[in-house]
C-alpha cells in the first residue's frame, strides 16, 4: 500500500486543482450563478431598440442589476423587451427604462432611472416610461435637415 498512497495523493491533488480551475472558470470568469439571487421579470416597450441584444446588462446608477432576457415584436410592431432583475431592488412604478450606449462604440445597455412613487414594480409588470435608443445616423440626418430648413 506504500506506493499506492503516493498515487492516491497525486490523483487527489490533480482532481482538486483541476476542479478548482474549473470552478474559477465557471463561477468567476463565466459568471455562472449557483442558486443565486431571486429574480423577477419586468417588461418594457420601446419604439426603437437600436442594437440592443439579449443578455445586455440592466443598470441602476451604473451598477449591473440584471440582464435582458428576451426581445420580441408586439402586436403594434413595437419592441417588447423582458428584463430579468434582482427581486429586492424595489424599483418604484414610475421608474423609466432607457437604452444607452457605453462609450462611443460600446455595447448597448438598459439604464433604469428611479421614480418617486412609493408603490414598487412587481414581477411581470411593465415600465410606463421608456426612452428608445439614440441613433447617431438619425441625429446627423436631423441636424442636416434642420440646417437645410434654416437656410
Amino acid at each position, binding site marked *: 500500500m506504500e506506493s499506492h498512497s503516493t498515487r492516491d495523493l497525486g490523483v487527489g491533488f490533480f482532481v482538486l486543482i483541476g*476542479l478548482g480551475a474549473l470552478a474559477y*472558470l465557471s463561477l468567476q*470568469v463565466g459568471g455562472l450563478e449557483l442558486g443565486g439571487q431571486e429574480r423577477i421579470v419586468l417588461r418594457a416597450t420601446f419604439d426603437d431598440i437600436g442594437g440592443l441584444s439579449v443578455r445586455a446588462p440592466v443598470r441602476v446608477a451604473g451598477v449591473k442589476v440584471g440582464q435582458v432576457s428576451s426581445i420580441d415584436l408586439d402586436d403594434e410592431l413595437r419592441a417588447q423587451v423582458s428584463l430579468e432583475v434582482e427581486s429586492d431592488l424595489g424599483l418604484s412604478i414610475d421608474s423609466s427604462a432607457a437604452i444607452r450606449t457605453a462609450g462611443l462604440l460600446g455595447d448597448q445597455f438598459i439604464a433604469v432611472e428611479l421614480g418617486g412613487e412609493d408603490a414598487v414594480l412587481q414581477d411581470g409588470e411593465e415600465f410606463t416610461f421608456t426612452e428608445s435608443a439614440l441613433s447617431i445616423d438619425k441625429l446627423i440626418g436631423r441636424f442636416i435637415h434642420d440646417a437645410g430648413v434654416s437656410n
Partner: protein
Amino acid sequence: MTNAVAELGSRSTSLIEGLGRVANFGGGLLASLFRRPSRFGFFLSALFNTGVLSIALICLSGFTVGMVLGLQLYTTLSRFGAEEGLGAVVGLSLIRELGPVLTGLLVTGRAGSAITAEIGAMKATEQLDGLRMMAIDPMHFVAMPRALALTLSMPLLNALFITLSFAGAYAVGVTLQGLDGGVYLAGLENAVRFGEDVGQSLLKSLVFGLLLGLIATYKGHACAPDAAGVARATTSTVVTASVCILLADYVITALWGV
C-alpha cells in the same frame, strides 16, 4: 484501368472495415465500463499517469501560451488604442479554441502515445494473450481504465491550461506592459459567458479526451506484435488523434454556432 478501379475498391473496403473495427472496439470499451469488478485501482493508476504526470507540462505550456498571446495582442491592440480589449480577446480565444485544442494535442503527445506504446509492448510480449488465457479480458483489464482516465482528465487539464494562460497573459499585459489589472480582469469576465464559452470548452475537451482514449487504446490493441509495429502504432496514434482533434474542433464549433 481495371487495376486502378480495383485498387480504389480495396482501399474503400479496408477503410470501412477499419472504421467498423474502431466502432466495435469502442462498443467493447463502453460495455466493459459497466462490468464488475470495477477496476477502480487501475483507473486511478491510469489517471496518475495521464493526469498527474501531465500537470507540469500543461501548466508550463499554458503559462507560456498566455505570455505570448499577451505580448502579441497587446502590441497589436495598442496600435488601435484598444489595449482594454486584451482581456476579452485572450479570454475568448483561449476558452473557446486554444485551450481545448492545445491541451488535446499536448496530452496526445504526452500520454496518448505512451498508452499506445504500453499496450503495444504488452501485445508484442504476449502479455495480452497471457491475460486471455487466465480468462481476464484485456479490454476490461487494460484498455478501459486508460481510455476512461484520458477522457476524464482532459477537461481538468484543459481548465488548468486556460487558468494558467490567463495568468501568463496577466504577467505580460499587466505586469510588464502596464495595462491596468482591473481593466484586464473586467474585460475577461465580461466577455466570457458560462453557457456559450465555458460550456463549449468543456464539451470540446470531453470529446477530444474520448477520441484520444479510443484511438490510443485501439492502436495499441491493433498493432503488429513486434518492435517496428509498436513504433508504427505509436506514430499512428499521434497523427490520427491530432487530425481527429482538429477536425472535431471545427465540427463542434460549426454545430455550436459561433
